[in-house]
């Protein structure tokens, strides 16, 4: 075993040694240039990528970012058109299993040498690393991480319920919801009505009940696990959650209800870490809410991973190639990741970044600690609702079931289990 490690290190080292002077030469000869597309145009996302562009320019590069605002799918439509036209961007946003799917339709850049030179693989969660090296080679780099199952508690709703303990398990969560209800909180669970929202309710339920079942059923699509007792229990928990939600939300995004949440008219919110940035941007204070890891029945944090990433498309132009290498180095740089996450409210991909300093919130520190714990206990899993666990087609088919279940209370949990298994079968 030690021999293999040494050999691998040697190989990586020599590859890097061979490759690095080449970058240096390339960068010396031409001005590095990067054409990039992403959906990040406004708010903290837009601010973060603009800041990244500034750093790129400081290093002597030419930054050509074309944002495609709207949903990720719109960015993908542009990417698809550019690839079909034979003119892909040097670098584009893409994430999860779509990296593997898209890498089959156009050649990508082999980043192994530059990743090895940075010693990056050691500091990335293993499940996450796997997504970015389909076929064994690094072709994409994760940029920032969110957890999709953070629990946000409204301080005013907690006061109404006369509670101060942060719920750890689903039983605690359900207790607190009941207490809030009898304490005068109209809707103990704050929610939006989008498809991703409904998907998050299910994935948070299942992963909190059993991360192992989540891995086999949702990530590996094991047929037996998909019809297992944990799935039914997750649907039952999701039913409880939906009964505490405001039925009038329609298809509005969760952010519409943030004021009612802070006011204590709604109590708890199961949402991705990005909600912290949205709450702060809306003018609310850290005293208004508490952020904790989502409920987990075994008491140890469960982390539903969602990570944004850049994929690098092969280009012949020397300046674009130099730009790609510069971009890769920047994305892996702990200082850049720190800058980026501090703007968006995410946490860095690198597990060795110290979050104790200024500029980080308690929520981010708790999220990073939860990730460390979850990785140590093998409880870090990939989010389905945010397209990290399966390709888009399968994800959408499964979310159909969740969103229908959330809105149609006559569907029984056992019926939903069958529907989910059927949907998976139909989409494969």
């Amino acid at each position, binding site marked *: 075993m030690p021999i293999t490690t040494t050999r691998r290190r040697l190989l990586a080292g020599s590859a890097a040694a061979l490759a690095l002077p080449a970058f240096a030469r390339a960068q010396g000869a031409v001005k590095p240039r990067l054409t990039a597309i992403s959906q990040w145009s406004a708010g903290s996302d837009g601010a973060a990528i603009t800041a990244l562009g500034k750093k790129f320019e400081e290093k002597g590069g030419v930054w050509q970012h074309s944002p495609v605002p709207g949903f990720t*799918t719109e960015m*993908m*439509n542009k990417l*698809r058109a550019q*690839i*079909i036209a034979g003119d892909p961007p040097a670098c584009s946003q893409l994430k999860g299993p779509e990296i593997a*799917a*898209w890498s*089959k*339709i156009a050649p990508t850049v082999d980043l192994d040498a530059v990743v090895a030179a940075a010693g990056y693989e050691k500091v990335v969660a293993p499940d996450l690393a796997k997504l970015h090296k389909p076929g064994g080679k690094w072709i994409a780099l994760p940029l920032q991480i969110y957890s999709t199952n953070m629990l946000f508690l409204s301080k005013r709703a907690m006061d109404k319920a006369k509670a101060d303990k942060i719920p750890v398990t689903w039983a605690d969560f359900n207790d607190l919801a009941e207490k809030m209800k009898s304490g005068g909180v109209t809707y103990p669970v704050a929610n939006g*009505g989008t498809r991703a929202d*409904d998907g998050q309710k299910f994935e948070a339920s299942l992963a909190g009940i059993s991360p192992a079942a989540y891995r086999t059923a949702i990530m590996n699509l094991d047929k037996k696990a998909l019809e297992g007792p944990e799935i039914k229990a997750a649907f039952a928990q999701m039913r409880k959650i939906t009964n505490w939600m*405001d*039925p*009038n*939300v*329609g*298809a*509005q995004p969760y952010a519409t209800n943030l004021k009612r949440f802070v006011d204590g008219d709604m109590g708890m919110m199961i949402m991705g870490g990005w909600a912290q940035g949205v709450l702060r941007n809306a003018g609310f204070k850290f005293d208004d809410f508490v952020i904790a890891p989502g409920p987990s029945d075994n008491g140890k944090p469960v982390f539903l991973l969602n990570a944004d990433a850049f994929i690098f498309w092969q280009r012949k132009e020397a300046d674009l190639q130099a730009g790609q290498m510069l971009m890769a180095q920047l994305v892996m740089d702990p200082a850049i990741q720190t800058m980026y996450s501090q703007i968006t409210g995410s946490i860095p991909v690198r597990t060795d970044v110290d979050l104790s300093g200024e500029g980080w919130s308690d929520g981010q520190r708790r999220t990073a600690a939860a990730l460390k714990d979850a990785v140590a206990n093998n409880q870090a899993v990939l989010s389905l609702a945010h397209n990290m666990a399966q*390709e*888009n*087609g399968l994800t*959408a*088919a499964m979310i*159909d079931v969740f*969103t*229908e*279940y*959330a*809105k*149609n209370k006559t569907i029984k949990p056992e019926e939903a289990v069958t*529907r989910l298994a059927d*949907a998976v079968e*139909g*989409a494969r």
Partner: protein
Amino acid sequence: MTHAASRATGRSATSEMVRRLPEYLVIWVPLLLSAAHLISFSIWTIWISFTPSTLIPVSGWVGLRNYNAVLASRNWQIAFDNLLLFGIAFVLLSLITGLLLAILLDQRIRAENALRTIFLYPLAVSFVVTGTVWSWLLNPSIGIEKLVHDLGWTSFHFDWLVNRDMAIWTIVIAAIWQSSGFAMALFLAGLRSVDADIIRAAQIDGAGPIRTYWRVILPTLWPITITVVVVQLQFAISAFDLVRALTNGGPGIATQLPALVVYDLMFQRNQLGRGAAAAVLMLLILLAVLLPYAAWRYVRRRKAAHA
């Protein structure tokens, strides 16, 4: 003599051709281009629907696999049921509303022009705008229900938009608001073209206004009725933007319509083959409406030619 005459006509026919060349160019070139465009893309879509294409178009042959997958999917089944309900309800109700508005406007009233413009105006608004505005109006927490509650009638209940059994009717409401003006305009033109002598004759025979409308005027409107039905039906079948803005297929997937399913499969699920199959199915539904209409027009024209 005959020889000379025919030569003369030949020359004048040629000069006539030359004279009218710009007209032919203006009409035929765009017509041919758009026909080629339409037909080539239709054929291409049909071809894609038989291939295993996912992210990008690829060649290959999978037979009817895409069609089977689409037909078996819950989304398509719900979309098809919704289409039946929406198509029938929307066409009938917009027909009745349009006819009623036309008859009322036909009573030689004051400010007819202003009223006609008002009723026609929704047609000038884009479907996305209609959908968005109605999604606010119909939302129970901010729209009509809240307004009535604030006025003091607190037991009032109007939550169709978020009620999965009634949500499809909100699309019917918005669609009628948008397009009954169109039916009204056509019917009004029809009413105005009814021969005044026939109406006078009916009045002399002692028919009241209702009887005159029912027995004399309305029967002359049925060719217009069929045109309105066909135009509205093809709108119903291809409805997309209105639904996307109003309910986006929700609550859950309760208000799916075929066009939403096509878009979803092609651009959100990255399943081009299945999306193309769903598009071809939509085309078949459209043909089921348009072919009988074309046949009916053909028969009618032949009858007219013989008469």
